[in-house]
């Protein structure tokens, strides 16, 4: 189901095209927002429990009274979210009020609108644009403007540090991300997300699913470059230097509290989903079943897409609770001296492979 189909389906589309468009967008946007909220709660709970498992503790177990009391601490993320909503919303006296209020929404919008091009299954995509991947790469770096706004408007040195760091980091890591996606586009010769997935049907080497990660050695490398750079774009450990807690207190979010802080939090998790979703689409076959020909209905497609994405999110959580944090110059040298050259060579490699063996 896409937004175009919705518009065609409306009986009023001929008479009031503008109103129809607005309605269709709303009908798509509200479920996506709800999905992000529910997904964030699930991943926050997952993060609590996975980190507890890794750290030899039990995590939320449902003791005490109120929301915490439910079985296995399942309501803990809801209690957390309620706490954030109920907390006092403080705007520092010296802050630039307009920018301060606007910043969390800009950060969130960057992550939110990227969802419109994510193919959840064969039929479930809001808009299958012919520039799908390009669109996601473009809008997901919108968040950096919000982060700089947050850092600048807070009028706090820690926030400024965090904002400048994240600007440098996100813009730098855009390059390896884009270059590794180019390797994919060269093979699929389409930028449409559904087109990329359709390319990956069938078998390769006789036994492996024809996912791009298995297509050739260069795309195999490209997957890791994409995924690791994606983690850097989400500001997750080991690349969480913009909000490095032990150095910058909370980076760009230092002055934020309550609901505004919750929005930053939500966008971080939404960004993780976008990165994992694009990685699953471009390299792991998206909604394609791992056994070609079996379990390939749209409902199974949703299952495969979600499980691949959730697995990659699990890997991000796993990283976070294992690694220390890099320093800001080391982060840059990994990007400019490591990933970018390798990704460039990769493009040539894919081209040569395609010409000689493809």
């Amino acid at each position: 189901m896409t937004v175009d189909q919705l518009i065609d389906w409306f009986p009023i589309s001929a008479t009031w095209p503008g109103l129809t468009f607005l309605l269709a967008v709303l009908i798509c946007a509200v479920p996506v927002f709800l999905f992000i909220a529910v997904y964030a709660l699930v991943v926050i709970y997952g993060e609590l429990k996975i980190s507890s498992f890794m750290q030899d503790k039990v995590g939320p177990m449902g003791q005490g009274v109120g929301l915490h009391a439910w079985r296995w601490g399942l309501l803990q993320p809801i209690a957390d979210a309620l706490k954030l909503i109920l907390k006092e919303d403080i705007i520092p006296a010296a802050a630039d009020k307009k920018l301060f209020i606007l910043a969390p929404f800009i950060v969130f919008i960057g992550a939110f609108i990227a969802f419109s091009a994510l193919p959840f299954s064969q039929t479930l995509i809001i808009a299958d644009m012919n520039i799908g991947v390009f669109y996601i790469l473009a809008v997901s770096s919108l968040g950096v403007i919000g982060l700089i706004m947050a850092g600048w408007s807070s009028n706090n040195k820690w926030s400024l540090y965090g904002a400048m760091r994240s600007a440098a980091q996100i813009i730098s890591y855009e390059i390896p991300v884009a270059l590794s996606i180019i390797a994919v586009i060269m093979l699929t010769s389409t930028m449409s997300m559904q087109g990329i997935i359709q390319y990956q049907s069938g078998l390769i080497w006789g036994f492996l699913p024809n996912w791009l990660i298995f297509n050739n050695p260069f795309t195999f490398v490209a997957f890791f470059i994409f995924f690791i750079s994606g983690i850097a774009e989400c500001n997750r450990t080991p690349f969480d230097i913009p909000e490095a807690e032990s150095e910058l207190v909370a980076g760009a979010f230092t002055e934020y509290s309550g609901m505004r802080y919750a929005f930053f939090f939500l966008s971080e998790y939404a960004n993780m989903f976008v990165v994992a979703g694009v990685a699953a689409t471009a390299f792991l076959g998206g909604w394609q079943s791992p056994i070609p020909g079996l379990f390939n209905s749209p409902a199974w497609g949703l299952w495969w897409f979600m499980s691949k994405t959730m697995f990659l999110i699990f890997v991000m959580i796993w990283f976070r609770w294992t690694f220390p944090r890099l320093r800001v110059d080391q982060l840059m040298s990994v990007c400019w001296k490591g990933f970018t050259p390798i990704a460039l060579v990769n493009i040539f490699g894919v081209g040569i492979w395609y010409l000689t063996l493809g």
Partner: protein
Amino acid sequence: MGVVQGDQMVLNIGPQHPSTHGVLRLKVATDGEIVSDIVPVIGYLHRCFEKHCENSTYEQVIPFTDRCDYIASMNNNFGYVVAMEDLMEIKVPERVEYIRVIMAELNRIASHLLALGVYGLDVGAFTPFLYMFRDRERILDIFELTCGARLLYNYMWVGGVSHDLPVGFVETVYNFLDYFEPKVQEYNDILTYNKIFIERTADVGVLLPEVAISFGVSGPNLRGSGVKWDIRKEEPYSIYERFDFDVPIGQGLVGTTGDCWDRFHVRMLEMIESTKIIRQALKDIPTNGDVHQALPKKIRPPKGSIYRRTESPRGDLGYYIISDGSPQPYRLKMRSPAFTALSVLNEISRGWMLSDVIAVLGSLDIVLGEIDR
């Protein structure tokens, strides 16, 4: 390529900051990320302990020593009672000496576990911190079993200890050692030899031996620079000359000798040495004997003064006590190893980045309670 010189920005790290290890304020002059000058501002935890001691009897001083270096209270008690016993020329029973050494070394392990775990936190690794706190907890349980307290023990008294060992103590400590020794490998796997951790700490904040000596840095920080200096070996107090243990020093295994990684690694090795000492002490400890035998009825040392130093987990901890023959000390001065460690911070982290200042500060393992007293 020329260097761009921007205006300097003064950044206040602390007193409320996640990684100043207490209430320390650092006035940091920065140019972008590069730090050009660091001025530590101390005194936020000043509680006038040395002045308080002048108005307390000698027994009442011991709880104050607990609260100085609250991470290693046993070692602080130990330093004070060793000085007092030398001043009063008391000989304590064998059993007491063994108990004290076991407690001091257990506390050294606990203190190093905290230092290493929190250092992991400083460079962004959360999980090792919880691993080390989990194991530190077992040591605190042993202390609780012995004297009822988990942090501030007031355990070692002049001429004895407050409580005799509980039933089953030796087995409990053996169990702990059997559990703990393999865990060191776990710490090494998750943190010490982690590539990112090495990137962050190797070659950073190199403390040259001559700089360390001229600033009076001692303990693991000095040994990290490759100087073999340990009061337990150089000026053996209590019964330390009976035990066979090594003094690990930094060798620059992954970087330069004296970098943050070396200081970290020396602490890791020292924990293993401490387990060796504890094992020997558990083997030789007399099975019975009165732990209060040498306890004086009233502490009234003869006129005179004494300076005695011991090896606390942070280094050379000295007590200077002047007695005028009354039941209260005329003057009591502590030489704090953490204070000298903090004083070297500007010297070794100038010119590095903001993140490195936090890493260097963490590697020096300061305790503000001891610096401010």
